[in-house]
């Protein structure tokens, strides 16, 4: 074994002033926006949900859970959305850009804009308020540097700034939960620390302050009919304050252990819903004094809102999901890219962004112990796989995070058949880390990953790298192989094979071999694209192994940098002979054919990823500069200075369905795959051309009507399917109709008369059905069997030359049946009746149905 130390370097440090076409490129936020920052609102018909997402309002259909419309126009964050109480088809929004806008919900069109001189943090609407009068929250003068306080102003659209009347001067807390109007528009309530403030709109009662307990209040809700207000506080108490305009009566209820996040009354005011960090929706029946629970919703809840029909509730989970509940059953889940900030002080995605090769979906850490599959192209969540099988339990204080298990590494095999995960159980005060490797196989029938093998304690220390061998079918052995590297100084090769258990014949993953190099700690592993070479980096040394035989073939080391190697990546495609290794100060490219350094560039590399389907590689340095290069060349193809801190990135292969752009409008290196970056705020950013960005924004505005995007009812679907089958027939039917409408008024009368003028369906139907029954005395031909009826029909069609006309009449009869509002199953039953019998029947029924006579006579005519 020879150690080749290479000094012949071509130190072409790339010139950053290179003339790239990066001027044309922009960053486009395509996903990952938080859906749960503001409280979602149901429309008045409870069919849609309005959700504030950054600068726009998304309208989700309750029936499908899909986004059907976007209200685009605000130039800053939308802080509040509500239905216009004066016009139920309109929505009113307010934004930090200082405008209040009214929209048409159906078209998504902007109707009116009112501009105010300060950013608007919240807004109150009520049907008793005049249309030109606004109650708006702006940021108040800060008394101390710790808390931001808000001021509620009463102002009108045409008045100037000085005329605005201050209603509450100091409100502290989360701005949208600070103020509320009573259900009858009698007063406005606000919270200031542990005081409830009341401002009466009717009568001459002076504003009052009411001390509600000794803990700071967090949220409030008002009863829809009574003068009752419910407030929640930091200690988890809910205080229900009644009789506000007379002697105040208050009642304290306590269930929540942590602070009450949100409160909402049901539209009739019988129930009060409260949510908090316990992941439980509590349903208080205030009159009876009983409460019921909807537990284990998965993540802490920060908003709850109730539809006017009281059938639906929307619950916002802090991991960026909105649950639509109907009678305490989850009906829809609107899932954004789930966020890790809920569980960690900063965003922490240990798995990084992965690509599922099967669906081209982005995969990342989702809910605690889950992997979240996300379709980036239409910004929808696909599936969340529970890896650890643990329920999230909130701590007894908000700061106290309990011990939990999280997925720290994950990898997909080349074709997406296998998924490997590494999970670790961590606690702040426990040093012993429990580690587990799981292998999941994709089940084509269930269309999901099933657990195949669990390896408890695969290593003595943390696993820091996990990689599948690119598996090719023609290769010998044919068994997939994976490699894990750990801080205990060893890397292990895992192979899928026979189970050694004697009792059960199955296949599972077994440890094939263990490798180590001196006493060094492996930092990363990488397979060459054909899977024939495994490279493992130990400190400053790269070792090359033959994975099947587990033989060390070469060690590579250079003296350009003494820093340990952090990332290792083989090139793909044309540059598959190249091995890129990254330390914290430079990127070096090795040529595997010559075992020499091809090039080396000084770059404080933070991220290094490769496109599995092309020879592109991307690197992000510590100052968030993005470089895209090919493994063989040190000159970057593309360079961009990202504004935000990038924590992960991945290449996603381009599919034909995306946008339908011409190739000219794409960045030249992105023709085959699109690069997506994840920022610290856990937003997904794509690098696109300006044309692409324009097109994307245009696409966001839905052109069609809201109603069209709703799914059809089952009956409509049924009709549609039949209609498709017989579109030609329908035309023929209309022809027949025309034929008879011209000369027979009877048919015209029957088909064209509105159904409500016709005789009762009951009388019509029974006689009609009787006429269709087989007469008891008629001899049934033996070949008329239901199972053979199709063949029979075919025979019939062959025999009878006028098969077209027969089909027409069949359809005609169907039409009649539909007109008479007969059940649709009748059609199918009737189709099985041979046409000959039908002809006989029609003759028999001629007497009863004089106006059907002509139709059936047409049937029985032998042309």
């Amino acid at each position, binding site marked *: 074994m020879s150690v080749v130390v290479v000094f012949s370097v071509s130190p072409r440090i790339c010139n950053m002033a290179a003339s790239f076409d990066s001027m044309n490129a922009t960053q486009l936020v395509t996903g990952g926006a938080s859906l749960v920052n503001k409280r979602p609102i149901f429309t008045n018909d409870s069919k849609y949900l309005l959700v504030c997402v950054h600068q726009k309002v998304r309208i989700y259909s309750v029936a499908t859970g899909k986004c059907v419309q976007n209200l685009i126009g605000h130039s800053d964050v939308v802080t509040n959305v509500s239905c216009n109480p004066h016009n139920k088809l309109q929505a009113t929004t307010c934004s930090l850009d200082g405008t209040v806008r009214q929209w048409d919900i159906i078209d998504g069109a902007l109707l009116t804009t009112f501009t105010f001189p300060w950013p608007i943090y919240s807004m109150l609407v009520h049907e008793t308020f005049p249309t030109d009068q606004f109650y708006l929250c702006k940021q108040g003068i800060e008394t101390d540097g710790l808390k931001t306080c808000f001021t509620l102003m009463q102002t009108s659209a045409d008045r100037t700034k000085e005329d605005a009347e201050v209603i509450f001067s100091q409100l502290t807390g989360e701005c949208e939960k600070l103020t509320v109007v009573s259900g009858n528009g009698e007063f406005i309530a606000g919270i200031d620390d542990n005081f409830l403030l009341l401002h009466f709109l009717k009568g001459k009662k002076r504003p*009052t302050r009411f001390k509600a307990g000794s803990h700071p209040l967090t949220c409030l809700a008002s009863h829809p009919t009574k003068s009752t207000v419910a407030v929640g506080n930091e200690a988890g108490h809910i205080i229900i304050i*009644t009789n506000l305009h007379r002697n105040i009566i208050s009642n304290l209820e306590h269930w929540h252990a942590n602070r009450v996040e949100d409160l909402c009354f049901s539209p009739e005011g019988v129930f009060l819903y409260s949510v908090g960090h316990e992941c439980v929706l509590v349903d208080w029946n205030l009159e009876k004094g*009983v409460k019921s629970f909807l537990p284990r919703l998965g993540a802490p809840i920060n908003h709850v809102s109730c539809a006017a029909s009281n059938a639906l509730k929307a619950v916002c989970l802090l991991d960026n999901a909105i649950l639509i509940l109907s009678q305490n059953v989850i009906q829809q889940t609107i899932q954004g890219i789930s966020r890790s900030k809920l569980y960690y002080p900063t965003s922490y995605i240990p798995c990084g962004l992965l690509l599922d090769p099967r669906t081209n979906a982005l995969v990342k850490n989702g809910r605690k112990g889950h992997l979240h599959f996300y379709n980036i192209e239409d910004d929808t969540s696909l599936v969340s796989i529970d890896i650890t099988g643990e329920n999230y339990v909130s701590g007894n204080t908000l700061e106290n995070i309990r011990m939990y298990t999280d997925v720290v590494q994950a990898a997909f095999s080349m074709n997406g058949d296998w998924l490997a995960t590494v999970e670790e159980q961590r606690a702040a005060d426990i040093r012993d880390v429990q580690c587990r490797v799981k292998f999941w196989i994709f089940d084509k029938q269930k269309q999901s990953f099933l657990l195949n093998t669990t390896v408890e304690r695969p290593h003595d220390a943390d696993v820091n790298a996990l990689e599948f061998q690119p598996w090719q079918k023609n290769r010998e052995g044919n068994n997939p192989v994976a490699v894990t590297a750990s801080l205990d100084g060893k890397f292990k090769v895992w192979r899928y094979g026979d189970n050694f258990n004697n009792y059960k014949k199955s296949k599972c993953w077994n440890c094939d071999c263990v490798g180590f190099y001196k006493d060094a700690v492996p930092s990363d592993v990488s397979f060459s694209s054909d899977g024939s070479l495994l490279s493992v980096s130990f400190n400053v040394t790269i070792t090359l192994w033959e994975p099947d035989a587990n033989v060390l073939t070469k060690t590579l080391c250079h003296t350009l940098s003494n820093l340990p190697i952090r990332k290792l990546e083989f090139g793909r495609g044309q540059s598959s002979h190249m091995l890129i290794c990254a330390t914290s100060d430079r990127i070096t490219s090795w040529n595997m054919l010559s075992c020499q350094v091809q090039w080396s560039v000084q770059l404080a590399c933070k991220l290094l990823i490769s496109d599995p389907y092309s020879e592109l590689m991307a690197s992000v340095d510590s100052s968030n500069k993005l470089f895209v290069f090919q493994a063989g060349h040190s000159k970057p193809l593309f360079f961009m200075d990202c504004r935000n801190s990038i924590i992960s990135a991945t290449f996603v292969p381009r599919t034909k369905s995306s946008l339908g752009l011409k190739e000219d409008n794409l960045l030249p290196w992105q023709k085959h795959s699109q690069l997506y970056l994840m920022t610290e705020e856990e937003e997904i950013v794509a690098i696109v051309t300006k044309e692409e960005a324009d097109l994307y924004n245009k696409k966001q505005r839905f052109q069609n009507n809201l109603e069209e995007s709703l799914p059809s009812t089952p009956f409509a679907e049924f009709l549609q399917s039949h209609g498709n089958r017989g579109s030609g027939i329908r035309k023929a039917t209309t022809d027949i109709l025309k034929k008879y409408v011209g000369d027979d008024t009877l048919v015209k009368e029957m088909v064209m008369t509105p159904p409500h003028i016709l005789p009762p369906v009951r009388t019509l139907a029974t006689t009609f059905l009787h006429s269709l029954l087989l007469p008891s005395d008629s001899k049934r031909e033996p070949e008329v069997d239901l199972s053979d009826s199709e063949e029979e029909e075919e025979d019939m069609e062959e025999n009878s030359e006028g098969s077209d006309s027969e089909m027409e009449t069949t359809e005609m009869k169907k039409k009649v049946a539909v007109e008479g509002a007969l059940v649709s199953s009748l059609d199918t039953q009737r189709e099985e009746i041979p046409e000959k019998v039908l002809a006989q029947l029609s003759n028999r029924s001629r007497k009863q149905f004089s106006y059907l006579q002509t139709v059936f006579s047409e049937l029985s005519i032998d042309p």
Partner: protein
Amino acid sequence: MGEFKVHNGKFFEYMPSGIQCMSYSNHTLAVGRTDGSIDIWKVTEESWYHQKTLPGSEQRNVQCLAWVKGRLFSAGLQGNITEYDLVKLSPKVSHFYGHGFWCMSASHDKSRLAVGCEDGCVRLYKILEDKGVVYERGFQFQKEQIVSLAWHRSGEVIVTGSINNIRVWDVASGQVKQRITTQRLRRRQEVVVWCLTILQDFTIVSGDSQGLTQFWDARTGVSLQSFNSHRAGIFALCVSPNERSVYTAGADPRIVTFSLASTNDRNNREEWTKAWSSHHHFHDVKALSVVDDLLVSGGTDTILRSTALHRLGSDSNSQIIPKRRNDLPFPMKPLVQTAPEANLILCQHQCSVELWRLGSIEKDVRDFADGASISIASGPSKLIEIRSKSGEQIICSALSTCGSWLAYSTVEKIRLYKVTLDPLVLHKVPLIPDSVLPSHQLKFTPDLSKLVSVTNQCSIQLVTLDDLHPILFHTFEPMERPISNMAIPSKGSVMAVTDESGLIKLLNFKDPSKEIQTALPRYKPIISMALNYSGSLLFVVYSDRSMNEFSLHQQTYSKMSPKLAKFCTLQWLGRKQSIVHVEYNQTNDSQLILMDNTSLVVLNKQKRPPDDYEPIYDVSAGSKRGREAPPMSKVKRGREAPPMSKVKRGRQAPPMSKVKRGREAPPMSNVKHGVAVGEKNKVQHGMAACEKYKPLLFAGFLSDPKTILVIERPIRSIYEKLPPAFQTKKFGT
């Protein structure tokens, strides 16, 4: 080195009995307990205090109480209606009926009593003018026993609660007007309507065994509202005088309030709303009563608690959690008598007395640090336990200072014993003359010649002590009102007595023929008083905790009296516990020890009074707890905590002339002086309180004037002896 040694004993296992029922009328609250005794509390505007106890007996169960024009009636499950003599503290007359009585209520015109019987009949009794009641008639029988009953204000309608139903009766005809079947939460489970009441607008409020509080319309029998307010049965219910609030409590000891709130609809209807709830008890609440602006509650946990109502709902700044006051279940008279010369104490239980010898410490212990524990040489030992005949309750007991005489009195008679200590012989004095009446308070004169007894006839009798033939020496002229307190000096011949109105009378017990003219000023009822060693000074504590001192020679306030008034700061008067026991230091007339149920106060009249803002009571409990822990653990092993030495704040500092003039700001010289002596942090005023020992049963000087005896009864050990309470899940446990 501390000023006092504290001898701390926890061996007296006094067991108070639970509260069964309450009745309030005319500033007097009667509290019936499960052992049949009835406590009478006097309620005044600024304070309320335990006035007297009517002893119970096993033959008389007190299930319910009623005041009728200042007369107290009780009814019980033995089937008796009893009227009490509040002067003699004994039953006046009892009427028996065949069946037990569950409930009783007086009509609003106070002419009749209605009782609900075990056999399912409501019976009416007419209240006679002078004493007792007479049976008038019974209503129609029903199958189930009648558990609760209430009169409508008009006197025409009675509502009764029984098993599974509520009935509305017409008083004139005795017929059922309305029958309401209660809602069942669980099938095949009987619902007992434990308590109900009817409001003036014919709304029935009922509390049942399922924990439901329900509001019904009595005229139609329709349920108006129903609240699942408790998790277990509701036993008690009461209505505020304006009938806008209802309070309920029971086995789930939360007290839940319901208030009338207006609904904002067109006809301005009002409906009941669940308002605040308080969780102050931890065992069944059996009785609730509104006393002026307080809600008083009591139950199996034996503690009478009160909650202020006026803070609630009156204005927009009202608080949600009301202030409360606890009254520990100990009587206002000391249950412990000491014989300092013999190191003996006498502990008075419900039906027995126990004579204990205190433990002793090693002699050579001299120097010990403040707060240090001293190991004991010998623990306390119980010498004698005397049980009263056939379970009669003991009203009072006495032990002579040398421990050679012992006496106790029941409702029936006084019993006197001669005790010889070495060897221990108890000799019962057999022939007490019949003219010696049952006593309410007993004391031996210090020279052991006589037994002084406050009789149940409001007079004072002197009995000469003799082994065989004690004779009635003298009977003083009876006072107009019942005598509440008596003080006898160690030397001298003049004793002081006070009656319930606060009149002080001086009597010469050595030579009863000598009349003493007294003209001592009257202020308020006197709760406790003490005479100094020579019998020249009389220290009194009034019901509002204000203090005063009289000089008996001058027959007027003593010199210290104006200064004592300054000791009564707001902080002192603001505490609600009555002073149970006062004692002069035998060697130093300026030093007194005062005791209430939660604290022990050493008062030095020579020092300056505390300023308004100066803390009397030690707020910082941190160090207190640290000290308390070790003796607690020792008690379990040795049954007596070792005597403790304790610094009483304030050493003998000369009183400052400035102090008298300016109470607002402490004079600078004072601070300097403090620094010079090195007592920067010590409070120098003359009132030193100690809340370390609580609940206190007794605190007083032993023969050594530097030693204080403290008898504690940890409240937790009382609770350990109670039956298991309804368990409620507490978060985080």
